[in-house]
């Protein structure tokens, strides 16, 4: 059964806000009429008073609403709801009264509205910040639980990964091993293959679009390439699973050697195609940001177009291009859907792109899906992996931003 009370409470709060606005505005307007000769800018004042009142009423109402919602519990009684209703009407009513009492010519409503807007925006910014802190905190906490069972060194430097732990004591063949090296090696192998595809292709696309393409070509080609970025990664995963993987396997069969359909090569290739638009559009931006005057100077010194491109444009844009690459790498490392669909789950420590490898994201998904005891090392291992992944991408992003910022300063 649907409980309508919370919805009506919100409507009541909204109605009270409108009421407070009208009442305060009316009172302030009447007062302005009396003081019209003494103030210089009287006509805006009622609006500021009314806004302030409405905002305060809204704040009080929402606060009472949330407190009520939290205190209400799963099975509310009519009496509890009556108290809630009374509070949600009386609280804002008291605030409205306070505001009405404060409608005086010497009350700086406008400055307070300004102050409230500032505080409100700061609070919203804080929400984003606190969420991040909360996520990192929970990652660290769960990972620390994991590291109570498995030593950090074994985790970071162990070369054997088989996270099946015995559910009952004495169960055979289920000894957990949490050496994460093969998992990270798999991630890096796939990322490397993806970058081998995406870096040169993306860069060439960017150079073509920014330096050679006519504006008409550009108007068509740039959105077309960016469509690639709009394809959901599950579609890429599907493509890797049923087309590219088997294609590479069949080609290898034909050449006479056996290759897994889940080879790192297939996954990396598809992932590379997926991040081409990221590399090309970021690089395109930085190449176009190189001032035309530098190109002209180089041309006037007798450099050809490609010499100018190589020696001036590319050199000037290099920090930005490196930044683009780093962002693409962190995207590839964190990519989940393609690898979950098309990569292996078994952790093999190998540098051979034709072997099947697993990645950090695949393992996290594998560890957390299915029926699990939540405090087993097996489940907690996912948080440890997540933490390390987070640290790696964080460092890459910080590095990318630092490089890009240094570049920005240079032309100012």
């Amino acid at each position: 059964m649907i409980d309508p009370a919370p919805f009506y409470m919100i409507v009541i709060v909204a109605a009270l806000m409108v009421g407070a606005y009208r009442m305060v505005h009316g009172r302030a307007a009447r007062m302005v009429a009396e003081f019209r000769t003494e103030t210089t800018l009287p006509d805006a004042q009622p609006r500021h008073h009314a806004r302030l009142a409405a905002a305060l009423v809204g704040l009080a109402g929402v606060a009472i609403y949330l407190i009520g919602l939290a205190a209400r519990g799963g099975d509310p009684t009519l009496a509890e709801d009556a108290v809630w209703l009374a509070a949600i009407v009386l609280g804002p009513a008291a605030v409205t009264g306070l505001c009405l009492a404060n409608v005086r010519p010497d009350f700086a409503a406008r400055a307070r509205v300004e102050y409230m807007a500032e505080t409100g925006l700061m609070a919203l910014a804080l929400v984003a910040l606190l969420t991040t802190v909360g996520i990192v905190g929970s990652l660290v906490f769960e990972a620390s639980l994991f590291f109570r069972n498995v030593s950090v060194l074994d985790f970071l430097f162990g070369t054997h990964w088989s996270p099946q732990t015995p559910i009952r004591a004495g169960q055979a063949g289920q000894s957990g091993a949490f050496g994460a090296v093969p998992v990270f090696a798999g991630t890096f192998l796939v990322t490397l293959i993806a970058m081998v595809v995406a870096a040169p292709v993306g860069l060439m696309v960017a150079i073509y679009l920014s330096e050679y393409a006519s504006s008409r070509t550009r108007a068509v080609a740039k959105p077309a390439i960016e469509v690639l970025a709009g394809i959901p990664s599950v579609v890429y995963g599907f493509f890797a699973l049923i087309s590219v993987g088997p294609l590479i396997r069949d080609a290898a069969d034909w050449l006479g050697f056996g290759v897994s359909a889940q080879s790192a090569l297939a996954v990396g290739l598809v992932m590379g195609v997926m991040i081409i638009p990221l590399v090309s559009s970021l690089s395109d931006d930085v190449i176009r940001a190189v001032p035309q005057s530098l190109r002209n100077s180089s041309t006037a010194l007798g450099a050809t177009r490609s010499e100018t491109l190589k020696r001036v444009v590319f050199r000037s844009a290099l920090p930005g291009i490196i930044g683009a690459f780093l962002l693409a790498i962190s995207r590839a490392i964190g990519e989940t859907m393609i690898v979950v669909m098309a990569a292996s789950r078994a952790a093999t420590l190998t540098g051979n792109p034709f072997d099947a490898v697993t990645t950090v994201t695949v393992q996290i998904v594998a560890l957390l899906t299915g029926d699990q005891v939540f405090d087993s090392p097996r489940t907690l291992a996912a948080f440890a992996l997540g933490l390390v992944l987070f640290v790696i991408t964080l460092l890459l992003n910080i590095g990318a931003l630092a490089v890009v910022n240094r570049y920005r300063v240079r032309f100012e």
Partner: protein
Amino acid sequence: MVEDKPIKFSGRCVSVHYGASRALHNVDIDIPDRNVTALIGPSGCGKSSLLRVFNRMNDVISNARVTGEVRMDGIDIYAPDVDPVLLRARVGMVFQKPAPFPRSVYENVAYGPRLHGLARTKARLDMLVERSLRRAGLWDEVKDRLSMPAPGLSVGQQQRLVLARSLAIDPDVILMDEPASSLDPIATARLEALIEELKTRYCIIIVTHSMAQAARISDHTAFLHKGELIEFDQTERLFTNPADIRTQDYITGRFG
């Protein structure tokens, strides 16, 4: 016109169009070598377009079209067998706003010689860099910090640096497009003294908005108006005894 110096550039019926609009119309001009020639005129009169005719920088603008005949030392520089890239190596250019490459002072000056393979050894390159910086009057200020990033220099120093950069490939001609417009009076005075020195070695063509500057530094002055060359004469004569009423109006400040 009395000429004691050989003619460097001779233009006949030179017109420049940008798309449908005409920037320069049937200009005939003979520019003497080892001399400073100033191009003056109100904004949009075509003086920059004329300047860019001499090193074919108009080619870089996609809808620009140059017609007529321009000869440098008697050779048609718009002939199909002339490589504009090689022409630009002989005709250097300094722009209105200095645009040093975001690299070191040394690398900026060494850019041209490296590009054209002028220095086989490091010692020769060092020599070229030093000579160019000396000619541009910048050596004493930067000799101890050749490896500092060039964009960190002051604007006046940057303008002399880009001048040194064009001198490093040893051109015959230096084109200057309002080189002093972003400089303060002291830096402008330095640049003008430098131009005075350089004209013994190079043919210099300078576009300027300042008639006082044209009068101070140039030997010949061309006055352009609405895409046409109104008057071209020795600077002294043009400023003291202009033949055309429009020239007189412009130099006396009646318009422009």
